[in-house]
């Protein structure tokens, strides 16, 4: 495959510190370092099958089967993996209309997803339609800015979850977009929307300070950025504290590389998003140095699933 394009960027980004120059991975071999790969998708919108051959833009691209194979391959190569999704798993092909998200959750469970947050379209069959499929999901749901009190979702969605990968402790929280005006009221029922920035900061502080997480990830369905003052991953990143990485969705933004913002403490926050429809799998490799407890983004890729390439 001589035409294969390999745009792996080698510069590394130190979390909570300066952006470092290019450093190859092997230089870490001597220190007590651990690598963790964060794999992520967003807005895959029930795209079970690859786009059909007549599709003008994405013919032959995507497809859950090939994503599963790709993830399986990565699992053979990497020791520590977290597989995450930033919402809008549901809606977009007849698979959702007919099976209500059943196959989407089964496939994600098979692929070994660890944690997801909710997008607006995940409510398209109502709270009831979501709750009905949740027993099929072998992964966690996080959101810290919706109140689920007095709804069927009460107790089924946690503000955060903590994962351990080797010596690394990772805290994951989720934030969701304002549902009013976006989702018919009868579908989201009594779910209350609360300020995502306040709640994300509160949850992140707890994860970083009380729970001593080395890496705090926010799964966000707020959208990458807007021209107005609407809250987005950009505004969240800039006003955040204790969040290292924001994996976003909603705006279907194809970022060719992650965006680095400075938070209120002038520390780096990485924001990424990989478009939609399961066309790409994001892969962010972090190196954890146990000597100084520093995490560094070593390499990032957006792996494009293209059967005709």
């Amino acid at each position, binding site marked *: *495959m001589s035409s294969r394009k390999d745009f792996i960027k080698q510069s590394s980004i130190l979390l909570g510190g300066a952006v470092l120059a290019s450093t190859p991975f092997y230089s870490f071999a001597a220190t007590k370092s651990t690598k963790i790969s964060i794999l992520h998708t967003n807005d895959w919108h029930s795209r079970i099958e690859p786009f059909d051959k007549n599709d003008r833009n*994405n013919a032959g691209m995507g497809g859950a089967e090939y994503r599963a194979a*790709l993830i399986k391959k990565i699992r053979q190569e990497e020791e520590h993996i977290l597989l995450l999704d930033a919402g809008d798993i549901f809606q977009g092909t007849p698979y959702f209309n007919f099976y209500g998200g059943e196959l989407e959750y089964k496939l994600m469970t098979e692929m070994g997803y660890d944690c997801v947050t909710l997008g607006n379209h995940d409510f398209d069959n109502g709270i009831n339609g979501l709750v009905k499929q949740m027993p099929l999901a072998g992964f966690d749901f996080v959101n810290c800015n919706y109140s689920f009190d007095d709804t069927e979702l009460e107790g089924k969605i946690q503000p955060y979850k903590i994962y351990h990968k080797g010596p690394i402790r990772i805290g994951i929280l989720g934030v969701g977009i304002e549902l009013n005006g976006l989702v018919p009221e009868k579908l989201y029922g009594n779910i209350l929307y609360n300020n995502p920035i306040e709640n994300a900061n509160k949850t992140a502080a707890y994860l970083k300070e009380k729970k001593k997480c080395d890496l705090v990830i926010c799964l966000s369905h707020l959208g990458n950025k807007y021209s107005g003052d609407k809250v987005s991953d950009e505004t969240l990143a800039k006003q955040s504290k204790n969040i290292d990485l924001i994996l976003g969705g909603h705006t279907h933004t194809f970022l060719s590389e992650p965006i680095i913002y400075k938070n209120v403490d002038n520390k780096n926050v990485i924001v990424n998003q990989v478009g939609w429809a399961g066309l790409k799998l994001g892969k962010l490799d972090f190196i954890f140095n146990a000597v100084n407890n520093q995490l560094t983004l070593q390499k990032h890729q957006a792996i494009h699933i293209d059967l005709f390439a």
Partner: protein
Amino acid sequence: MKKLIPILLLFAFTQCHTPKPYGKAELGGIRINKDSLKISDEKTHVLIQIYKVKLDSLMGEVLCFNEQDLSKQLPEGSLGNMLCDELMLYVKDKVEKKIDFCLYNHGGIRIGSLSKGNITVGKIYELAPFDNYLEVVELDGKSCKKLFDLIAQNGGAPCSKELRMKIQNNQASDIFINQQAFDENRNYLILTNDYVAAGGDKTEPMKNAINRYKINVFVRDAMIQHLRDKGKRKEALKAMVDGRMEIIK
């Protein structure tokens, strides 16, 4: 650092600053294909097949032939024109009152293009996947004008051929409905979906509706039925951009 420069340049050319929800996926990162994977996921394949076989039998039905490639665009796109014009034809003999025009939300069209060729039931599901009902909204002229101005600010919206307007300085002008100059002092009957009828997707003036008449059919099912009938009559689907909504610089 020298080695990095060409890579960064490539990023500069491929980077997309404005989100393109339905645009072509960019070439950043690496591509992976069936051959380079060298691994298959049999379990996933089998799982999908179980669902796919049943679904294909329902979704594979050919409704009619589409004569040209259609695309979703603003201020006006052939795909949006097609949808709104065909919905007008669908309701024509189904409602007693004369509908003035059809208006749809750009975001409600969920595919970027519809290729020339046979249109299947599955394609219509992708075009309009939501369970949105068709609805007719009776709106006073002043609210209509507010709605048109809002559409102008947002760069246009899909509409049927009965409505023609120009967008100038983010305002609607030269508005004609059924070849008659738009009259702020009368009411209009607008065909749309229930999401827009409720003022969703930047259509707040719809909340001033005088009357709302729900048509008990999903947009998707209406289109399927309508295109199936068209196919039975051996008619092909025709649509194009005709300047019904135009931005004047």
